[in-house]
Structures are given as structure tokens and as C-alpha cells.
């Protein structure tokens, strides 16, 4: 039986939901163990157990909150040396990317990213060229390192209790070089982008930052809707980074996705093509987004938005 390790990221003591998706997937492949490092780790270990992790290596040491990647790699390399797992699973998130990347060099292990499906400990799938081609990749060596896109798997609670093994790695001073000195996180209002059943997303076609107010207004008219954006408008500073949907950014799979003034660059499509239904409004009838839309409207998003807000308000009474 293979042993699969899941690296579970925590932020401000909260477990990254993608780590539970990975635990569920790993359970289909072998025995599941998890590693969780930073404030709140021991508490998170109990949750990981409920989803099927049998052993959780945990440390609540704040060194993992304060410094980027290097302490984690140091601890993981020690644990891996002692336990020799067959595969390491990470979610494709900011900190995990860095940790997995460094670990690849430390262990000399091949790394595959953007993983969407894992068939066995030596085979995994990803999509290339805007998701048009699925490649099935054979991996050699031990342990393999995989970075999976969040929401590739559905987390299922199985009930269970993990044996928690404290991580007692001594972190050397030279692994404490990149230090977080301030945290600026925008407090999210309304439903989270990743969880909202309706996502309203804006791109360059909205013409100016102020026009995002129409999306906010439509979101509150619909209720249970969240507002997102393309990388282009996030990079242009129109809306905060937390709005970004796409390859870099969030992956969403709402019941309905409405794209306003979005042409449909690969970068964006990858983050939303799993939506159940897609509605796109764009002036350009050639926009690639129409190729994946259930309802496409060739028209001016700025003209349609106020009308749609009124329609929704009147129908909801």
C-alpha cells in the first residue's frame, strides 16, 4: 500500500479547504498522512483526521507563520527522510507553491503542477493549451510532488481520528530570511467567491473601475452572489487581488457564472470553466468566451447591467 502525504496549509489558524479535498483524493490512492505547520496546526489535525488522515504531523510553532517556505522545507525534508512517503500532495496556493518548489530541489524529486486528476502514485493529469488538451503524465522517482488545482476533488468527511505526531524540527537561523512583517488582508463581505452559487465577473469591457459598482449592486439584488474579475483589471488596479479568477487567482465552480466584458483569455477560462452554467456579455461577437457560454449576449455590458438589476429586483419582488 502506498503512503500519500498531504501538505495542509493554514492561514491565521484556519485550514485551507483544498487540503481536505486532497485528503479525500489521497484516500483513494493509499494510506493518507498529513503535515500541518503553524499556529492552529494541532486543532487543524483533528479536522484532517475526520476526512481520513491517519497520522498528522503537526507543529503550532509560530516560526512557520512568520517566515516563508524555508522553515517548512526544512521540517518536511526531515520528516520525509524518516518516513519515506510515495507521494506528496500540495494545493496550488501561494505558500504551498513555494514550499513544493523548494522541496523539489531539496529532494531531487520531479514536480508536476496544475494537477486536475491523480490516477495512481505515478500517473496524474493536467490540461494544457487553455484546457483543450488533457495530458496524462507518467512520473518517476520517489517521492513525487504534485500541486493540484483547488476544487479538482470534492472533500468528503469520513469520520475518523488522526494520530497527531508533534513535529520537533529545529529550524536553523539561515532558514529565517524571508519574514512577514505586516499583513494586509481585505475583509471579505458577502459570500466568498469560491463558495457563492452565483459569480458576477468583470473584465476590461467594463471600461473603468467605477463600473464595478454595477456588479456589486447586481450581486446584492441577486443575493448569495459574489463579484470577481479578470487578471487584466486586477493588474490594472481596478479591484483588489482577492477578486482575481483564473490560472493565477481563484478557481470557481458556481451554479451560474456571469461574465461582463470578458473576452475569455486562457488565463481566465481555466479558473471558471467548471461553472455549471455560463452567461457572457461582450461587445465583440468573436470573443472566445462565447464558445463556452450557455447564453451569449453580443452587446454592451454597461447598458445591460442597469436593466438586469431592475429585472432581478422586480422578479424577486
Amino acid at each position, binding site marked *: 500500500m502506498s503512503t500519500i502525504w498531504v501538505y495542509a496549509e493554514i*492561514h491565521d489558524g484556519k485550514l485551507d479547504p483544498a487540503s481536505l479535498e486532497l485528503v479525500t483524493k489521497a484516500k483513494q490512492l493509499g494510506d493518507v498522512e498529513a503535515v500541518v505547520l503553524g499556529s492552529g496546526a494541532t486543532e487543524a489535525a483533528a479536522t484532517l483526521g475526520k476526512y481520513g488522515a491517519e497520522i498528522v504531523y503537526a507543529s503550532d510553532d509560530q516560526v512557520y507563520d512568520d517566515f*516563508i517556505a524555508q522553515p517548512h*522545507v526544512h521540517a518536511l525534508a526531515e520528516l520525509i527522510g524518516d518516513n519515506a512517503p510515495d507521494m506528496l500532495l500540495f494545493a*496550488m*496556493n*501561494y505558500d504551498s*507553491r*513555494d514550499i*513544493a*518548489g*523548494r522541496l*523539489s*530541489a531539496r529532494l*531531487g*524529486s*520531479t*514536480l*508536476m503542477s496544475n494537477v486536475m486528476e491523480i490516477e495512481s502514485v505515478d500517473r496524474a493529469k493536467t490540461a494544457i*493549451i487553455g484546457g*483543450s*488538451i*488533457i*495530458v*496524462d*503524465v*507518467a512520473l*518517476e522517482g520517489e517521492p513525487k510532488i504534485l*500541486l493540484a488545482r483547488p476544487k479538482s476533488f470534492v472533500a468528503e468527511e469520513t469520520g475518523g481520528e488522526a494520530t497527531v505526531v508533534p513535529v520537533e524540527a529545529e529550524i536553523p537561523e539561515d532558514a529565517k*530570511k*524571508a*519574514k*512577514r512583517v*505586516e499583513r*494586509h*488582508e481585505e475583509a471579505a463581505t458577502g459570500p466568498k467567491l469560491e463558495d457563492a452559487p452565483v459569480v458576477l465577473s468583470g473584465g476590461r469591457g467594463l471600461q473603468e473601475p467605477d463600473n464595478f459598482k454595477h456588479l456589486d449592486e447586481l450581486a446584492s439584488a*441577486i443575493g448569495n*452572489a459574489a463579484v470577481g474579475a479578470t487578471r487584466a483589471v486586477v*493588474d490594472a488596479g481596478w479591484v*483588489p*487581488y*482577492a477578486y482575481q479568477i483564473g490560472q*493565477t487567482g481563484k478557481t470557481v465552480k458556481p451554479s*451560474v457564472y*456571469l461574465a461582463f466584458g470578458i473576452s475569455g483569455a486562457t488565463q481566465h477560462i481555466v479558473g471558471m*470553466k467548471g461553472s455549471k*452554467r*455560463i452567461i457572457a*456579455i461582450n461587445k465583440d*461577437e468573436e470573443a472566445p468566451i462565447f*464558445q463556452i*457560454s450557455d*447564453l451569449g*449576449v*453580443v*452587446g454592451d455590458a454597461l*447598458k*445591460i447591467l442597469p*436593466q*438586469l438589476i431592475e*429585472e432581478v429586483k422586480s422578479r424577486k419582488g
Partner: protein
Amino acid sequence: MNIAVCVKHIPDPNVPPEMDGKYLKREGVQGVLDPGDEFGVEAALQIKEAQGSGEVTLVSMGPASAQEAIRRGLSMGADKGVLITDDKLKGSDALVTARVLAAAIKKAGEFDLIIAGVESTDGYTGTMPATLAEFLDLPQVTFAKTIEAGDGSVKVNRQTAEGYHVVECALPAVLTVTAGVNEPRYASFKGIMAAKKKPLENWSVADLDLSDDDVAIKQDVAEQTPAEERKAGEVITDDGTAAAKIADFLQEAKVI
């Protein structure tokens, strides 16, 4: 301050990509400097200009045609370039790429900063710079939105899922920059002419003190299949009734 910038020559992202067997077709197609790397080159030039001294060296791995990407960076103002070309490197994974670039950077000189884009626009692996940092035994700060390079340290606003963190890091270090960190300059005619005379070294794996085992690729495409296509649905032109049709759709989907 001496800065190395990792750059990649990629098939023009504005042209539909073609496959060459298992790999993305790279030779005989229109290529460009990865647009994500222009931000890295610009960041390096701005730091050098602010400090008033130092050199910017571009480092790339790829087929001979990848020289074009380096020339483009040189025409923006970088000082010199290194290209590693070797048939053995075709189809390299991020691990081998990072190992080769690390060896080339060590050979090219002493650097205070190594800058790369967050991820390439053709492959999107997104881990190469962190792997490179580990090979160089340096810290890394990825996803920089702003960079303040000081004496012996750097202060970075690093993107996070819900905002940003301010990170302070001792130099030397590896940084990755997001699009939006700066506004890359255009190459002037003078810059383009000057770039032709700037030094560009061509190295192979043998020049880097790496064994065949070091460049052995441990992943391989076993199979390729077309993805299940989402079918395009109805496309209508707005004649004033589109808002009502969208609302109908939302009602059918039971979200209003």
C-alpha cells in the same frame, strides 16, 4: 547591485499554439519574450537605475531561437545575456530547468538579486523560481507587487489570496514579480541597435559542470487526449431584451 533576470522565449501567446508531438511547438513558430518576464527585466532595470550602479544579466534556457528573447531584454537596457541550449534539455521539467539555471547563474557571476516572472505564460508551472532559490541556497519572495531594494535587504509587498503581506528579506534573494509591479518600457531604436553589440554567451550542459543524471527528466507525457469541450449555447444580439432573457435564465437556474 548586480541582478540576474530569468527570461523565457515562448511561442507568441496571441497565436493559437501548436503541438509538436508531446511538446508545445517552439521552433519554426513566431516567438516572443514571455510578456510576464518583461516585468522582471523592468524591475531589474529600475533597481539598477535607482542604485546608480551594477549590471543586469539575462539568463535563459531554450533552443537557439531563444536568443531573440534575450536580445529583446538587452534592447530594453539589460547589460548582457547567457543562453543555455542543449538537445538534452528538450522537454525539461521545472526541476531540471531550475538546476540548469542555478548552475548558469553561479557561473555567470555574483548576484544580489535574481528576478523571474511568477510563472511562464506557456507552461504555467509556477514553481521554477522557488526550486531555483533552493538550488542557490537563497531565500525567495514570490508574487511581488512592489519592490523596495535597500542595502543588504529587500522589502516586498507580496500578493496573497485576500490581500498582501509585507515581507522583508535578506539579500541575496530570488524574487518573482507579478504583472502590474511596473510598466515595462519599450525598447528604443537606440536600445535595439545597442543590444546587437551587447555580450551574449551560449553555453551547453557540458559548460555547466552538470552530469547527464542531473538533467535526466523524471516525467513524461504518456498520453494526450482532447478535453471534453463545453458546447457553445445560444448567442443573441442585444436588441433591448437581453436583460430580460438573462433574468429568465437566472430564474430557470433557480438562483433568483
